[in-house]
């Protein structure tokens, strides 16, 4: 069962609709049991880092999500669902899920690039290092981006970006003032800064590839 974690951060319905569109049933829930028993958890979300972590704490989901990830179940993070995987964020004082090392930083431009980074930008597919620390092999990585060309456009809306300590987990990068990590891939974790559920054909394709890859 695909589970979309409902923790009160943003528009989960549109993520669910995207799964429906590619022919996969996904349940939106904050029920611990359902999350623990799911075969793929999806953590979307828009809004602030602290609010997200506070909501997860209130719902007692922090340990649940950590457990699911530690057990090796596939985790798909979207936008805020990517950011909370890291240790901390410049956006607030809360600790993140601390499943990945690194932090979330605010875009800080001396030029006049606007913030939030809002709209369609392209992703550069990064061929992972030949010997990823513990990252998935190239062949698996290829499966997720199958049919998605280098420099394809995806929809972004965010003011913060992740800085993973281990650069080898970065699967795509995007340019906005800096060259930042627009998606990461590490063991059973795949997470994107962009919104596949809002990225038309490319986004739906990516979701479908990922769901198939995880065997759901």
């Amino acid at each position: 069962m695909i589970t979309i974690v409902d923790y009160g951060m943003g528009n989960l319905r549109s993520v669910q609709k995207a799964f429906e569109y590619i022919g996969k049933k996904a349940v939106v829930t904050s029920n611990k049991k359902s999350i623990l028993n799911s075969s793929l958890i999806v953590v979307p979300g828009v809004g602030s880092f602290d609010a997200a972590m506070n909501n997860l704490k209130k719902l007692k989901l922090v340990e649940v999500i950590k457990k699911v990830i530690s057990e090796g179940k596939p985790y798909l993070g979207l936008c805020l669902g990517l950011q909370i995987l890291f240790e901390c964020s410049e956006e607030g004082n809360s600790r993140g899920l601390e499943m990945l090392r690194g932090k979330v930083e605010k875009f800080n431009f001396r030029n006049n690039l606007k913030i939030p980074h809002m709209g369609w930008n392209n992703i550069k597919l990064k061929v992972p290092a030949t010997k990823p620390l513990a990252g998935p092999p190239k062949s698996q990585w290829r499966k997720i981006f199958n049919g998605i060309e280098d420099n394809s456009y995806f929809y972004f809306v965010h003011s913060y970006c992740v800085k993973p300590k281990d650069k080898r987990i970065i699967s795509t990068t995007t340019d906005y003032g800096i060259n930042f990590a627009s998606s990461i891939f590490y063991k059973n974790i795949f997470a994107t800064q962009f919104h596949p559920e809002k990225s038309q054909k490319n986004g739906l394709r990516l979701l479908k590839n990922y769901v198939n890859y995880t065997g759901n």
Partner: protein
Amino acid sequence: MKKKSKYLTGLTKRIIPCLDVDKGRVVKGTKFINLRDAGDPVAVAKRYDTEGADEIVFLDITASHEKRKTIFEVVEKTAENVFMPLTVGGGIRTLDDIRNMLKAGADKVSINTSAVENPNFVKIAAEKYGTQCIVVAIDAKRVQYTGYSIQDTVHNKQIKYKPRWEVYTYGGRRATKIDAIEWAKKIEKYGAGEILLTSMDKDGTKDGYDIGLTSAISSAVNIPVIASGGAGEMEHFYDAFEKGGADAALAASLFHFKELKIKDLKEYLIRKGVKIRC
């Protein structure tokens, strides 16, 4: 105007069709008169999706309160079929209105009159739902004398009047005496994530966006600005981006009645060197 292209960015300029929805149907005249039926909003949105629109804006202009819920159904049905950002505006007054729109499948809401009447609403809404989903719509009209220089006959010198624009509410029916540039700066501080800027002087004229207004607002704030009102030709979009510094350009009837195809417009802009998603 400072060019942004010299900075490292792959971000593209957005083309946004706007659908004015009245009791569940797309209508368009010039702003509030001569409403012409332009079809079923869900079907129109789907068409724009395949034509390569970057986002879609629904503006609910339904006057009667009891018919207002039709917009929810429109948004809901659209969001089942169209996977791109949807903004909904018109009559957003409470946090519940925002929540309902987001629940129906909207990604952003556009607030106009209620932001002017209570700027704190923008703040509270942005805190609750995130700045990324709060668009503030500004309807602005040029104030007399603006942009012209006149002769001061007493001192025999030219006086340059800095152009000024006034904010209007209630769909352009009520003047507020608020300066549009000051207002834009204020709502940015209050947490607006984007500005939907409509020139009332240009709206419906088809002789181009108000470049002076667009440029003045765009350089005054550090959030994205959508230019609106006046698009009639492909060149107008080019001007809005390159001269006005707009991040996105919106048009309605031009696209509805197929006077201009989004695909052709995008090809034109790419040829002219504008960063556009194809």
